């Protein structure tokens, strides 16, 4: 997020795209509701009528995957009606003229044809966003999990720059991240192309710095494989071994039949987890890890806030904290790795990472810190791009609408959209074992529009089979008008409804994110 969560409450206009916030980030959703309660205007862009959409002044139920057309359409209105922030564009940005040419191709009437949203609604929302003193944009995977996910985000950034709704309070471009420490895992170099703090592996100075600190002669220079590419590499026999810590790709990754096949093909698989997950079952060695309650450390939340995780109990059985396990493996491989505590590891991270340079356990005991926090006396940076963008001038990127990789046809006439439920979490390893959540929300279902259900002879509670080109699952139908005709929705929480057997591995070319929000399926009633 460019801005803190607390800023949402003060926004006059909230544009929420592809985020089912009340279910996926319930506490952030309370801030949205409080903003609306205080008179703020809420526009929700989502094919489904989520709880947030019901709360909104405008619900833009676009056709799945048409976000760029919509965002360009909003920008088009703001440009042609002369509502944009000319000072901001002139002083803080570049590439405006070229971008404008692209956007002018998306007048509201054209966009209405692509997105299914009325031209006048597009105009009203564009005016509302542009004219508000402070407007914020929130989004999640509904924006990013498309083959054009990167361009979707660029289109959002273009809109924010056009109106100058960035680099100031109560505004910004704010992805709400889905996992407790997904921000931190990225910050720490858990990505194939960067080391900590997004320092590129391709940069020789960066490699030299880390090699010296880590006591090795050199570090690999070529960016590595993303998770999807690893699965393909494993299936092709190029990747021979994997070490998986606290992840469950068998349920979380697209086309899970292929994932299982890939993992089975490996010569050697290590899985380190707190449960014997669907992925761990395929492993040659399974290591029992300590849960969050059993270790010290830090998590970095969606607003870049680094917070202390504190050990409350001893690890269960012989489980060990992941950091200790990694030290054991490294040491056994002839690289002595020893730390007295996670605080020592953070000290090393701070030495090597400019944006974490001022972060220490000593300071975190006094309260959290928001990176960039380059030095021990730096207070942290809750708001990014104030006065100046990180890259200098904000760059307008012309982006064009492209349809999703797999659209419905005669054989597979529905779009399958997937996401999360309020009562459960990701692949369900934790929330299906709480003695409470799974008791209350025990069974998954497929949401289908009444018109479609009627055509297929399906009534609420019927068992149905959902089939894509890649796989199938059986699930109970729930007939609801919160999904539009032609779209069905379910979550990936329940192993017995392993919906990612069906999803498409088609990826965004830059971010390599799979298009989990759109694939073509057919639905059959089970007799």
């Amino acid at each position, binding site marked *: 997020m460019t801005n803190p969560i607390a800023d949402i409450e003060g926004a006059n206009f909230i544009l929420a795209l592809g985020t089912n916030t009340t279910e996926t980030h319930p506490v952030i*959703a309370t801030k949205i509701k409080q903003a609306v309660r205080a008179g703020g205007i809420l526009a929700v862009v989502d094919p489904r009528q989520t709880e947030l959409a019901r709360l909104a002044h405008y619900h833009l139920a676009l056709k799945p995957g048409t976000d760029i057309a919509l965002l360009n359409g909003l920008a088009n209105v703001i440009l042609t009606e002369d509502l944009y922030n000319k000072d901001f564009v002139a002083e803080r940005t570049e590439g405006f003229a070229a971008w404008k040419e692209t956007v002018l191709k998306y007048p509201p009437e054209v966009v209405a044809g692509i997105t299914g949203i009325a031209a006048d609604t597009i105009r009203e929302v564009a005016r509302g966003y542009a004219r508000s003193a402070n407007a914020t944009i929130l989004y999640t995977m509904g924006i990013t999990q498309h083959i054009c996910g990167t361009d979707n985000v660029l289109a959002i950034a273009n809109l924010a720059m056009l109106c100058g709704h960035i680099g100031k309070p109560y505004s910004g471009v704010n992805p709400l991240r889905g996992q407790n420490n997904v921000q931190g895992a990225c910050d720490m170099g858990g990505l194939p192309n960067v080391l900590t703090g997004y320092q590129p592996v391709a940069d020789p100075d960066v490699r030299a710095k880390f090699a010296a600190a880590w006591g090795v002669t050199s570090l690999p220079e070529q960016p590595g494989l993303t998770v999807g590419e690893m699965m393909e590499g494993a299936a092709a026999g190029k*990747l021979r071994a994997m070490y998986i810590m606290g992840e469950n790709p068998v349920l979380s990754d697209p086309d899970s039949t292929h994932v299982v096949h890939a993992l089975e093909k490996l010569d050697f698989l290590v899985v380190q987890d707190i449960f014997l997950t669907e992925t761990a079952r395929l492993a040659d*060695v399974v290591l029992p890890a300590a849960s969050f309650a059993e270790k010290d450390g830090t998590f970095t939340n969606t607003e870049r806030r680094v917070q202390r995780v504190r050990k409350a109990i001893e690890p269960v059985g012989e489980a060990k904290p992941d950091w200790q396990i990694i030290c054991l493996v490294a040491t056994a491989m002839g690289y002595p790795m020893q730390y007295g505590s996670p605080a020592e590891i953070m000290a090393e991270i701070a030495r090597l990472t400019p944006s974490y340079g001022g972060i220490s356990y000593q300071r975190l005991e006094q309260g959290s810190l928001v990176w960039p926090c380059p030095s021990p006396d730096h207070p942290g940076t809750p708001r990014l791009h104030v006065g100046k963008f990180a890259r200098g001038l904000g760059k307008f990127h012309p982006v064009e609408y492209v349809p999703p990789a797999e659209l419905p046809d005669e054989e597979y006439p529905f779009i399958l959209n997937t996401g999360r439920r309020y009562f459960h979490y990701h692949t369900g390893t934790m929330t299906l074992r709480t003695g*409470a959540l799974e008791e209350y929300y025990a069974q998954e279902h497929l949401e289908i529009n009444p018109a479609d259900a009627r055509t297929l002879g399906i009534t609420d509670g019927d068992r149905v089979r959902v089939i894509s080109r890649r796989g199938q699952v059986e699930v109970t139908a729930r007939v609801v008008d919160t999904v539009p005709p032609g779209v069905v929705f379910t979550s990936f929480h329940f192993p017995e409804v392993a919906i990612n057997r069906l999803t498409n591995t088609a990826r965004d070319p830059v971010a390599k994110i799979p298009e989990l929000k759109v694939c073509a399926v057919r639905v059959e009633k089970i007799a």
Partner: protein
Amino acid sequence: MANVTLTINGQQVTVPAGSTILQAAEKLNIFIPTLCYEPILTRPASCRICVVEVKGSKNLVPACAALARDGMVVETDTPEVIEARRTIIDLLLANHPMDCLTCGRNGDCRLQDYAFMYGVRESSFSGEKHNYPLEDDNPFYIRDMNKCILCGKCVRVCAEIQGNSVIDFTYRGFNTKIAAFMDVPMSQSECVFCGNCVAYCPTGALQEKYLRSHARTWEVQKVTTVCPYCGTGCTLDLNVKNGKVVGVTSTDGEVNGKALCVKGRFGFGFIHHPDRLQQPLIKKDGRLVESTWDEAIQLIATRLGEVKAQYGADAIGFLTSARCTNEENYLLSKLARAVIGTNNIDHCARL
């Protein structure tokens, strides 16, 4: 903003205009009891336990709502004030089960604290008492409306913090009760079981189901940490008894205040679930069997070493974890890059 100076219990204090008497007293560390008051909620000033004496005022005034004025002279513990508070407690106890011995909130109850503080052992009024059935229709929290003092905090929390307005005052007079629309059980209402009402309830009317039936309040140690679910980063307190996590309670989080969601507050049971892995496992003849740490670590070192030697470092891939700490992610990157020598490391950020 202009300041006002007033005198409370003989001590002068200066506060910004618009402050309440309660806020001025807090600045002097002078205690005034409250039941319905909560700084971040609207103030109905309905319970009257916070009344104080203001020189020149005909009646006692509620400190939580009355604004401090310049030259005001306030007394917080005159005999009249104490008597008023005792009467309020007396009246509340007149319709309150005296079952503190078995109440899950024993030791964590404002009504109990104030009854102790003001020496109200039992009610001097006798009359009708409610006999509502215990509401136990969900796995998250229980509602015992016999213990409700109608402070209305839960109503305001649900409306003003959670933004859902699921509950409100229903019925009239003595029969007034906090309930969902049409007084249906919570599991049939729009309640999302965030439990934020429970976090603010001053009595035993709302209780976390598991926590309050498995630990007395003085038996638990609270450890402040961060929720393990989504990316919001809510702060919460793990409640630990005999080395086990028995519940989660709110604390004053930097991101979330006291607010949590159903997963953060009630989704902790996985920690001690019997399915937890407690021993390293090694696959032998197609089956995962228990092993020692030494054996497992040695096998990993040997096999990864062999793969690296035979196929090169880039034949090995690592998935690090959005669920693990920063320190752990950093070390796995170090293992992949410095020890194995590959940039093949990624995690589920895209999923």
